[in-house]
Every structure is written in structure tokens, then in C-alpha cells.
């Protein structure tokens, strides 16, 4: 059973071209066990490159923990923040990670509700990205606390200090919303994983068998189990969408509820949400391209998936530009002195390089993604989507740090330089995310096998004139 190798003639001939949609690639002639093998086999292959990658990422993570310890031991002054820039790179990266986490739900819940079939092979990768990005984001509220050892004072439980948190503080909303989203996305990921854990259990032995057996919870795949699972996933998809909208809205209210010029804006919530979707979908595309190549999943992640994903990124990007412009024109026209100063700093002042980086890195990809060749060529799509996230990170930095440098009293204006501690900790979360994702891809089947098999049930090929066209049946 383990002798079968997935055939990939396309890969051999044109390494840069994704295989086009073909009858062969509908997986119609693939047996179920062949699909299982094709997904499971790459997980077992942990070559030297894999361990080198793990070692490098672990080293960065360890260094980041050292930096965090240094920060806790010596005080917040070892970071580059000051008065008035009380929030710096930590909060910027926090917003960035929360943003990245938004694509998982976008893909798996919204597309599941819309019955968009191209979501099937990428849902698990997207949900894992959500969970890991939220874990990284969740570190920052702790990291940026001046007295992190007192963080539990934010947890509402009766105590002998007679202390109670303030539920009017956006940080409390943040805490409960991110916690809810982390629980929701992790449970969503896990629930859809149970049948695949059972599949992996049947194919493995040793420590993997033990792990999968525990995670499968005794799943057999009876009709009743499938029925209940479907029902639960349906409820999850509906329930998690308001959560995902609320989380980034609440993050935006951290800023918008203050009367800091440029933060105090009603458009921040939808602007942040759409920016999150834009950067999250882009990050998902980047990750899928990398995983697809390193794990040889070309048979499952095909050009049609990247084509659709690319279109979605493009639409999200256009919406981002619209929201950005809607906020910008009001501020520009209002011409209030401090806002005018901030806009001036961005457009032609010291922040101009970042501003043009933000605009360029967010708008050029939209234009590039118009072309199908960009959407379906892995290298081009990877470059484009990475560019989007460069732009989105810069955008968050401009919002958080750029705005804080200026305020209502010019004598209080300041500047900000990140310190090595901040850069190390930011690097730690990037490496930590990559590390979690790398390990995940070798432990958990990256492609949701049962969902692919379910999708395969729906498709038949129909001949229209000279063409063979896949047609989908309306079943659920």
C-alpha cells in the first residue's frame, strides 16, 4: 500500500507552471487510499533541510525568549518606546498578527457557507494559520505589559485584593475577543480534523499512532457521526464569522476610542477588518505556495485554487484601497492642524518613505493580480503576496507609531527608534509562527482528506462540444 508514488509529470516538465485543470487532476481516478497515501507520505519525510529549518527557527525563538527575559528583568526601557510613543513595534506586530489570523475564517467559514468548492484543499492550512497567528498575537499584550507578572489582574475572578477589571477598557474587550477567537478557531480546526485523525490512525504506528488515536477520539465514521459533525461545522461557520469581524474591530477600537489625532476615526473598524482580510489572504497564499512545494502537494493545491485565491486577494486589496481613501479624504479635507501635520509628515515629511512603501506595496499587487499568469505562477504569486504583507506591516507601523509621534501639543512631539529587544521579539514571533507551522505540517495532514473526498463525490465530467467540463452536484 505504501509503494504508490503520486505521479507528477507536470512538475517534472515545467517546474514553474502549475498543472492546469485536467480530468486526471479531478482525482476521479484516484482511489481513496491513494489520496491518503499522497497526503500522509510527505509528512513522514523529514529530511535534512527540514531539521536545519527547525534548528534555525528554534534558535531565533530561543533568542527572542532571551530578549523577552531581558525586557522583563531590566524594564520596558530596554524597548525603544518613549513618551509620547508609548506603543511601538510590539503593538504594531500585534495588530499585524491579528490581521494575519483573519484569513483562516474567511476561507473556511465564509467559503464553506457559500459552498465555494475551491476552498476544500486549503481550509486546514488556513485554519492552522489563524490559530498560530493568534497565538503569536496573544503574546504581545503580555510582552508589552510593564509588569507582566501581574497580568492576571485583568482576569475577572473574586480575589482578596478586591480588584476587578474595567470592562469599559478596550484592552479587556481585546483580551476576551482574542481569547474567544483563539478558542473558536482552534476548536473549528480540531473538529474538522477528527475524521482525518482517524484516517491517519489507520495508516500509522508507533508514536504517531498513539497521538492520532488520542486525537481521533474514537472516530469510526458512522453515518450518525458524519451527520453530527456536519451539523456542528455548519453552526461553527455561522458563529465564527461575527467573531472574526468583531476581533479586528475591537483591535481597531484600541486606537479609535482615544482622542489621539488620526486614531479617532469611525472608519477604523471596517478599515482594519478589510486590511486584515487582505494581509491574511496574502499570507495564506504565500504559505500555501511554500508548503505545496516543500511537501509535494501539487496534486491537491492546483492552479485553479491559487487562481481563485488570487482573485480574492485582489478584491480584498481593492476594498482596502477604498477604505483607506475614505478615511484619508476626510482627514485631508478637514485640515485640522495636527492631522494636517501628520498627513504632511507622511506625504512629504520624514515618514514619506514608509508611506510610499505602504501605498506601493499595497496597490501594485492589486494591479499584478489582474493577470492570470501572476495568479497561477507560484514564484510570481509568492512575490506579490509577500509584497502585500510588507505593505500591511508598514501600514500598521504608520498607524501606531506614526500617529503617536505627533499629538495636540507640539512640545510633546517625539520620535521612535526600535531597540534590539523589540526587533528580537518581533523576529521571535515570526520564527515561532514558522516553526509551529512547519511542525504542524509534518504532524497533521495538511490537506483535509475527507473534505477532498467529499468534494470528489460531487463532481462528474460532462462533455460540452469539444470540452470536458467538471460539473458539481448540489449536495451537502
Amino acid at each position, binding site marked *: 500500500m505504501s509503494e504508490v508514488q503520486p505521479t507528477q509529470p507536470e512538475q517534472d516538465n515545467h517546474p514553474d507552471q502549475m498543472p492546469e485543470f485536467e480530468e486526471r487532476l479531478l482525482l476521479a481516478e484516484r482511489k481513496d487510499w491513494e489520496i491518503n497515501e499522497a497526503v500522509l507520505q510527505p509528512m513522514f519525510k523529514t529530511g535534512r533541510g527540514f531539521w536545519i529549518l527547525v534548528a534555525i527557527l528554534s534558535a531565533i525563538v530561543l533568542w527572542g525568549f532571551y530578549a523577552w527575559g531581558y525586557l522583563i528583568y531590566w524594564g520596558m526601557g530596554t524597548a525603544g518606546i518613549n513618551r509620547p510613543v508609548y506603543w511601538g513595534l510590539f503593538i504594531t506586530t500585534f495588530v499585524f498578527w491579528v490581521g494575519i489570523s483573519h484569513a483562516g475564517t474567511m476561507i473556511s467559514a465564509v467559503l464553506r457557507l457559500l459552498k465555494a468548492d475551491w476552498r476544500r484543499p486549503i481550509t486546514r492550512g488556513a485554519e492552522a494559520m489563524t490559530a498560530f497567528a493568534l497565538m503569536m498575537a496573544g503574546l504581545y499584550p503580555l510582552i*508589552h505589559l510593564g*509588569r507582566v507578572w501581574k497580568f492576571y*489582574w485583568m482576569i475577572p475572578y473574586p480575589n482578596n485584593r478586591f480588584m476587578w477589571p474595567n470592562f469599559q*477598557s478596550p484592552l479587556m474587550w481585546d483580551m476576551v475577543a482574542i481569547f474567544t477567537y483563539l478558542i473558536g478557531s482552534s476548536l473549528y480546526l480540531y473538529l474538522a480534523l477528527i475524521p482525518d485523525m482517524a484516517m491517519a490512525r489507520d495508516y500509522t504506528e508507533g508514536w504517531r499512532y498513539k497521538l492520532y488515536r488520542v486525537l481521533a477520539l474514537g472516530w469510526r465514521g458512522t453515518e450518525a457521526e458524519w451527520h453530527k459533525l456536519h451539523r456542528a461545522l455548519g453552526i461553527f461557520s455561522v458563529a465564527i464569522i461575527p467573531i472574526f469581524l468583531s476581533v479586528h474591530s475591537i483591535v481597531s477600537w484600541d486606537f479609535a476610542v482615544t482622542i*489621539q489625532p488620526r486614531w479617532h476615526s469611525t472608519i477604523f473598524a471596517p478599515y482594519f477588518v478589510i486590511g486584515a482580510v487582505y494581509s491574511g489572504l496574502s499570507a495564506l497564499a504565500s504559505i500555501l505556495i511554500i508548503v505545496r512545494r516543500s511537501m509535494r502537494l501539487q496534486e491537491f493545491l492546483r492552479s485553479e485554487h491559487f487562481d481563485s485565491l488570487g482573485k480574492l486577494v485582489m478584491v480584498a486589496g481593492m476594498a482596502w484601497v477604498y477604505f483607506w481613501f475614505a478615511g484619508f479624504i476626510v482627514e485631508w479635507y478637514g485640515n485640522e492642524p495636527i492631522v494636517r501635520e501628520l498627513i504632511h509628515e507622511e506625504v512629504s515629511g520624514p515618514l514619506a518613505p514608509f508611506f510610499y512603501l505602504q501605498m506601493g506595496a499595497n496597490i501594485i499587487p492589486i494591479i499584478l493580480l489582474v493577470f492570470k499568469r501572476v495568479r497561477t505562477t507560484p514564484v510570481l504569486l509568492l512575490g506579490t503576496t509577500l509584497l502585500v504583507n510588507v505593505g500591511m506591516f508598514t501600514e500598521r507601523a504608520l498607524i501606531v507609531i506614526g500617529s503617536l509621534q505627533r499629538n495636540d501639543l507640539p*512640545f510633546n512631539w517625539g520620535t521612535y527608534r526600535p531597540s534590539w529587544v523589540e526587533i528580537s521579539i518581533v523576529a521571535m514571533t515570526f520564527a515561532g509562527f514558522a516553526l509551529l507551522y512547519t511542525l504542524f505540517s509534518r504532524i497533521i495532514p495538511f490537506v483535509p482528506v475527507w473534505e477532498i473526498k467529499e468534494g470528489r463525490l460531487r463532481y462528474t465530467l460532462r462533455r460540452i462540444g469539444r470540452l470536458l467540463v467538471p460539473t458539481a452536484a448540489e449536495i451537502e
Partner: protein
Amino acid sequence: MAKDANQSDEGIRWALVVDLDRCTGCQACVVACHAENNLQIVGEKEAAYGRWTHWIIIHRYWEGEYPNVKARFMPIMCQQCSEAPCEPVCPVFATYHNEEGLNAQIYNRCIGTRFCGSACPYKARVYNWFRPEFPEPLTEQLNPDVSVRTRGIMEKCTFCIQRIRRVEIDAQAEGRSPTDGEIQPACVQTCPTSALIFGDLNDPNSHVSQLAHSRRSFRLLPELGTDPGVIYLKGGEVNV
């Protein structure tokens, strides 16, 4: 919904009047404040990077072109706003509004999110970036009435609440209420030109409330609606 206690016109509302006409920018108030409230000295390098811990900051603005340059000074401390933007954002109630109209900071509760600092439009709050150090013999002059704050927490001008409380307790023991001018925060006591006057704004006979009705009086950033407890009197051409 409960009645909003902050809006009350009854009781005491402590206020500080800053006469910009008299301020010479000598920084004596800053020094006095440091001594009274156990403020740490962060050193030149840190201060230049915006990490000073002064509770009073003398804003200095230059006016005009050389050689006709005028320096204008404006001492800015916590404005003790009635509608303080810093208060609702704290997740642990480390800053709240007390019944005497003061914007109180509870150091022990603070976990250091710095949200209040970001929310304050006057940026009057300062943060303990490092563990405070008081080299010998400075430890000998620490004020026992005021706690020494640790690293990682916010602090700000309290209107010398320890002095307010001491006078109030003494007055109560004598069965009277504090007289106008009896309470003197350290900066008020020290100001060589008497540019700072402290008192109860809700007492119509107090010096402070009379000055507050002066033609010269204004409050900082009134358009934000924070209703500060610090009242400025416009300066003329004097402080050159």
C-alpha cells in the same frame, strides 16, 4: 444608569491656576515636585529620548524670527480632567476619579499597559522605564508620605494628594474645614513668582475660583471636552 458622580457641582473640586504672565520658566516647580514626590532622575540621555519623569513639564515655545525671538513658557502637569480620557481605557482601574475631582493614580494596581499615556491628549503621564535608582545620599531625602514607584508603571501629577490629605486630616481633627490657601502642593509652595495658585474650584470665594472667572482664563485644549482642573491665565508680552 447611575448618576455620574464626576459631573457634580457639590463637594470639593481641587484646581490649580497657572498664571502664564508670571511664569518665568525657572523650573523650580519641577525640582520641588521631584523632591516632594520621590521622582526618579533618569539622566540626560534617557531624558533626551523622551523618558523624563517630570510630573510638570515646562513647555517652551519660541515665537518670532531671530533676533526678535520670544520664549514662551507653559508648565503642563496632569490636568485632572473631569472627563479624563485616560480613565476609561485602563483595564484594571489603576486610574479613576475620586470624589474630590482628582484623577487618582493607584500605583499598586498598575500593570503597565501605557494605554492611559496614549490616550492622554496632554501627554502628562510619565512611565517608569527602568527600576528607579536613588544614589546615596538621595535616599535620605525620600518623602515618607509618598511611595517609591517600581519599574513598569505609570505615574503622574497628583496635586500632592498627600499634602491635601494631611491638611484635611489636621483640619478635621480641629473640627473645621481647610481654609483657602492652606493646602499648598510642592510646586505652588516653591514658585518664586507665585504663578501657581491652588484651591477649591467649587468654593465661589476661593482665590482659584475667582481667578477662574478672570477674563484671561482658559483651559488647555478645550475643544476636546476634557474639562480640566488646571486653569491657565493668558500671558501678555511679559515673559520674554
